[in-house]
């Protein structure tokens, strides 16, 4: 999914760095009766809403573990730090977290820039970091102790390509993408993967975010031999594309997309026109997975609202750390080795394993909009 990198709060970040300098040495030390999990997430700033969802997901996982008697009779606590979605602030909170000897692992950060800023510190300290929200390619290379429960765009693009070409049999592909790093990256992945499967990209057209007039783009698609449109972008533009297809001679063409278009806003804005759109997603309330459904119920009972994608990724991240501690104890290196070798962890965002870079490998759900609702489908 798309991540906005905030460059704000640099000044406050620097101030905080200096403040931490003064406080160094105050970190707690020695073993105690509780196990602590670090959480570094933006609770203020532009990404605060997602950051709060992440905190909710982690707190729920820990609460459930404590209610079940904790680990080895020890209760688990969450140490929450606000990174404000700002990279320099992220380095500050990472330093604070690694100085606490009771912390067995950290869930964080959300923004890719923050995850990368923290990664050096966690890797030097030898403490596991699992990001619930950073999908940037660079996170793959961040170090042995850096993992993530969200997949890279490349993984999803590859899966979508297989579905589109091998299973649905589309061979003439039109790729429509938003004209920025995110859309361009996705378009590249989709083109590479579909062509590797023997399909041809017959149209590759860019549009601006917030564009309203898609007639030019759609006319070009209509003039090509495309039999499917894959969107490398978000839900607003996808809805408008779906609605304007009819006027431009593309009535009934299949549209496919990734989890960036998985939003109720797609259906609200698109109405009947978005029925039949096929997309990949990792977390959905339409999933028939038992763990997913019981998570949705527990989360809704606890917070009075349904969980979003990031709450689910965070819940999985916290549970993976708790699972490691339950199996190998609190030794940080042992935890890292356990997670690196983790296979087929049954999470709420799918069956999870990690590759050698600490990137998650899991199969997305296949979804289709049927009668104005997201449904899981086989084809």
């Amino acid at each position, binding site marked *: 999914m798309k991540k906005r990198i905030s460059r704000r709060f640099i000044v406050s970040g620097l101030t905080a760095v200096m403040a931490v300098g003064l406080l160094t040495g105050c970190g707690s030390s020695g073993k105690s009766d509780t196990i602590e999990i670090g959480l570094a997430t933006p609770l203020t700033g532009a990404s605060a809403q997602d950051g709060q969802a992440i905190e909710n997901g982690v707190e729920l996982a820990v609460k459930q573990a404590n209610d079940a008697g904790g680990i080895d009779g020890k209760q688990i606590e969450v140490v929450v730090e606000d990174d404000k979605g700002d990279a320099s602030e992220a380095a500050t909170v990472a330093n604070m977290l690694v100085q606490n000897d009771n912390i067995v692992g950290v869930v964080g950060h959300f923004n890719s820039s923050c995850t990368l800023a923290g990664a050096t510190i966690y890797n030097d300290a030898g403490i596991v970091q699992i990001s619930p929200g950073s999908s940037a390619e660079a996170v793959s290379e961040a170090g042995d102790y850096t993992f993530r429960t969200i997949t890279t765009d490349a993984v999803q693009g590859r899966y979508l390509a297989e579905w589109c070409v091998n299973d649905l049999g589309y061979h003439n592909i039109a790729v429509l993408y938003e004209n920025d790093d995110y859309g361009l990256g996705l378009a590249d992945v989709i083109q590479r993967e579909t062509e590797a499967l023997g399909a041809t990209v017959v149209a590759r057209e*860019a549009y601006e975010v*917030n564009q*309203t007039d898609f007639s*030019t783009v759609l006319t070009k698609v209509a*003039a090509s031999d495309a039999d499917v449109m894959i969107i490398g972008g978000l839900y607003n533009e996808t*809805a408008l594309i779906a609605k304007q297809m009819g*006027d431009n*001679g593309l009535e009934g063409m299949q549209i496919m997309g990734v989890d960036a278009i998985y939003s109720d806003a797609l259906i609200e804005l698109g109405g009947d026109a978005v029925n039949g759109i096929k997309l990949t997603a990792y977390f959905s309330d339409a999933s028939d997975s038992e763990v997913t459904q019981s998570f949705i119920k527990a989360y809704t009972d606890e917070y009075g609202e349904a969980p979003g994608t990031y709450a689910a990724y965070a819940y999985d991240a916290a549970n993976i750390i708790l699972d490691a501690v339950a199996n190998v104890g609190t030794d940080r290196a042992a935890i890292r080795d356990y997670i690196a070798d983790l296979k087929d962890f049954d999470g709420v965002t799918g069956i999870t394993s990690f590759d050698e870079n600490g990137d998650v490998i899991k199969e997305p759900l296949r979804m289709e909009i049927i009668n104005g609702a997201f449904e899981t489908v086989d084809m």
Partner: protein
Amino acid sequence: MFVQQLINGITVGGIYALIALGYTMVYGILKIVNFAHGDVFMIGGFMGLILAQTTNLPIWIAYPLAMLITALIGVLIERICYRPIRLHGADALAILISALGVSIFLENFAQLVWGTETHAYVQKIQRTAYNIAGITLSNIQIGVIVLCIILMIVLYLVVNKTKMGMAMRATSQSITSAQLMGINTEKVIALTFGVGSALACVAGILVGTYYDAVYPLIGYSYGLKAFAAAILGGIGSVPGAMLGGFLLGIVETLGAGYISTGYRDAFAFGILILVLLFRPSGLLGKKHVDKV
């Protein structure tokens, strides 16, 4: 594909032209750029949506009513935010800054009231697409083009054939002289803002109906393109704004269609730069000589 893209270009160009008229008329009379005009277009779009959504009025009452409300908002903006500065004798720069302030206010107001998300438009007209010799045309697209042309002809006739139009032209030549001739220039200025805003409202409703979307920041991109169209045609010239709008729409659509969709906006502003290099006063703009 050429004819199809040409039609797409004329459609979006007509919308640019309608908005550009508001820029050019205000500039013609007051020599200021009303940077809030793009947001008046947005407010007009929302007015049409809200009236069609919350009342059961048929569109031939609801949409003219939306135009009237938007026109009043335009007049009010001039009255509250520009006139006091103008009558104080401040230079155009002060009004420009006030216009930017109004723009920011309207955008934030819209986001507070209607939320930041994109709204689907109420479709009161059944959409039918016709396929003529491989070219797809919808009834709404035809309606957009026809309505834009009719409104432009009406405006042209009003400005050139009526007494009020004569007063407008006189005011644009010199406010002081017009006043000496007994013209109520404040009334003319208010009327200019009203007419420009009503046309922007039509553009907002057309964008809403044709592209099926309206959102609080929509005025930014359309306003910028329309402003470019006004400059391209020669700011201050009514036929210039019309020509500039259509030309901009056609150039950006054909450029995007035949070269690259990623450079759509680059074509729009590229043609502007190209024309200004050779004709600094725009295509139909009058040569302006500042006497020292």
